């Protein structure tokens, strides 16, 4: 039998159901792994002290003959942006250090109801602002493929946790690529569902019109299994869709069998390849597209002329929404309170608290958002950005009239080194050029590993995007790509990740 921590969630599920492995075994194995490697990786901000008790209760229920869901007894890492009642929720910020939520985020509640075992909270850029986890107030997470490099962001902790076999499944959130870009740089799978498909209730809001919670895993099928648990209508989120969704796990299984590639129309976005993309990222991407062609897919180049304005629009819309969402950190109801020297009024206390509690990137974006929303600049900046959003949606609509799915490299480069882009905010922002358009248009996207870049031996991912509500298409195509490549290689990509020394 494979080592428990190296099993996919789907395999672990089979062993749990047959009784060969107990939920306590599965949980203990992952807690041991965290203990052994997380000093190096630093994927976790908190580890649950209840996980083993929860696992024991799952085992008891199973032993009593209760019919449990497929993921019952499987450990789950939870991004710290999602509030939990049993562990602190900080969103990577000092201002929320030690914050204990009185309620669970809906996705956490649904996960618990499905029998998943939350084992810890994962590190992230503060309030999900960043592409590297270097903006976490609690220190960066390191990429399991190379500890001197970034694990992506903002959800670098969730991606590193699954890549380092500290958890088989994780939850992330994606506002401009925070699930897909970490998946790309860590050789894992990440899905940003259609906007509204998954509840945002209890996800500490960054930019409410862009945020979406989704699965972070090592395989497409595992992502589908977790997606099936969390994609439900939630009356607590007024933007939650009421759709009934097909099973994403079934879509992944059908894709892995090779169904549906023949005749599939695949669009390559002209504006998101070539110039500005690392050679090894581009070549792995082209090889994967050629593989799809060989399987009978019809590849068409499509143009999305307004994508070049996407990053600019995003860095107006996001700071505008974030500056108002973060106004709630006012030192009154929760979070840190700092008294200025000699005391002060409530407004002075608020300003001193926010000065001490927010990191540099958060301050930068709040000030930028406040500027974009100021009288006299509103129409020129925020108003124009909202119009660009319309133009990008129209580009997608036109593209999806010609093709079933769009593909791009998931990010322009492989994992960069710590510090490389820290001093140049615009360079960091441009890293999200491939992922941002999907958030602006509310469409779903997946990143699937497609190999290592020859020049640096680091993982590369392909992004597949589909029209709104067509999330199942991502799973079919993503699983097909994964199956074809693994057949070609004779192994999974993640099995080639370097062993972590541990302690």
């Amino acid at each position, binding site marked *: 039998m494979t080592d428990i921590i190296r099993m996919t969630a789907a395999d672990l599920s089979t062993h749990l159901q047959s009784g060969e492995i107990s939920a306590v075994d599965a949980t203990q194995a992952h807690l041991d792994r965290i203990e052994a490697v997380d000093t190096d990786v630093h994927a976790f901000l908190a580890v649950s002290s209840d996980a083993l008790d929860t696992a024991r209760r799952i085992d008891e229920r199973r032993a009593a003959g209760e019919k449990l869901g497929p993921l019952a007894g499987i450990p789950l890492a939870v991004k710290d942006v999602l509030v939990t009642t049993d562990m602190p929720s900080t969103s990577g910020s000092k201002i929320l250090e030690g914050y*204990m939520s009185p309620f669970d985020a809906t996705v956490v509640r649904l996960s618990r109801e499905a029998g998943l075992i939350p084992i810890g909270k994962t590190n992230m850029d503060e309030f999900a602002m960043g592409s590297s986890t270097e903006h976490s107030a609690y220190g960066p997470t390191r990429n399991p493929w190379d500890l001197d490099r970034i694990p992506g962001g903002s959800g670098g902790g969730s991606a590193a946790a699954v890549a380092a076999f500290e958890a088989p499944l994780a939850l992330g959130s994606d506002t401009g690529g925070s699930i897909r870009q970490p998946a790309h740089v860590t050789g894992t799978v990440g899905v940003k569902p259609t906007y509204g498909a998954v509840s945002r209730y209890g996800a500490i809001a960054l930019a409410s019109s862009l945020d979406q919670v989704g699965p972070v895993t090592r395989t497409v099928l595992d992502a589908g299994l977790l997606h099936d648990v969390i994609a439900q209508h939630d009356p607590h989120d007024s933007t939650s869709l009421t759709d009934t969704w097909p099973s994403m796990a079934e879509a992944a299984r059908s894709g892995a069998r090779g169904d549906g590639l023949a005749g599939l129309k695949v669009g390559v976005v002209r504006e998101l390849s070539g110039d500005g993309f690392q050679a090894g990222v581009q070549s792995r991407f082209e090889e994967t597209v050629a593989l799809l062609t060989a399987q009978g897919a019809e590849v068409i180049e499509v143009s999305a002329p307004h994508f070049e304005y996407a990053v600019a629009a995003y*860095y107006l819309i996001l700071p505008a929404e974030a500056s108002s969402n973060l106004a709630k950190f006012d030192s009154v109801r929760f979070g840190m309170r700092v008294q200025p020297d000699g*005391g002060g009024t409530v407004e002075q206390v608020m300003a001193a608290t926010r000065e001490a509690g927010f990191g540099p990137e958060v301050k930068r974006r709040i000030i930028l958002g406040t500027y974009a929303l100021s009288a006299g600049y509103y129409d020129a900046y925020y108003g124009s950005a909202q119009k660009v959003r319309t133009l990008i949606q129209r580009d997608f609509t036109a593209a999806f009239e010609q093709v079933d799915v769009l593909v791009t490299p998931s990010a322009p480069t492989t994992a960069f080194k710590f510090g490389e882009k820290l001093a140049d905010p*615009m360079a960091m*922002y441009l890293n999200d050029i491939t992922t941002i358009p999907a958030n602006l248009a*509310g469409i779903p996207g997946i990143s699937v590993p497609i190999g290592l870049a020859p020049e640096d031996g680091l993982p590369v991912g392909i992004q597949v995007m589909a029209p709104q509500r067509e999330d199942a298409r991502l799973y079919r195509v993503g699983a097909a790509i994964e199956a074809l490549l693994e057949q070609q290689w004779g192994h999974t990509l993640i099995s080639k990740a370097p062993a972590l020394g541990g302690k």
Partner: protein
Amino acid sequence: MSEISEEQVAHLANLARIALTPEEISSLTTELDQIVDSIAKVQEVATPDVPATSHPVPLSNVFRPDVVGETLTIEQALQNAPEQADNRFKVSAILGEEQ
């Protein structure tokens, strides 16, 4: 050039209730100037005929039945408060001496 001044950044910081240090105001002024220069390009294509999009998936009024829902208890609502008294959040003085 967007020409953002230090005075402007100080004013924005006051609006956003962040007591930035003079060093932060100075570095943010330079950074914001560069960022705004790069993002101002949205104006090139945002012509008057293009409608604005505020929400990616259009939804019309979302209602729920007008009944009492789940609410937090007073203890839960106050459990994270920096300061509390008599079942209420306690804050510093609202008015300063000059007011």
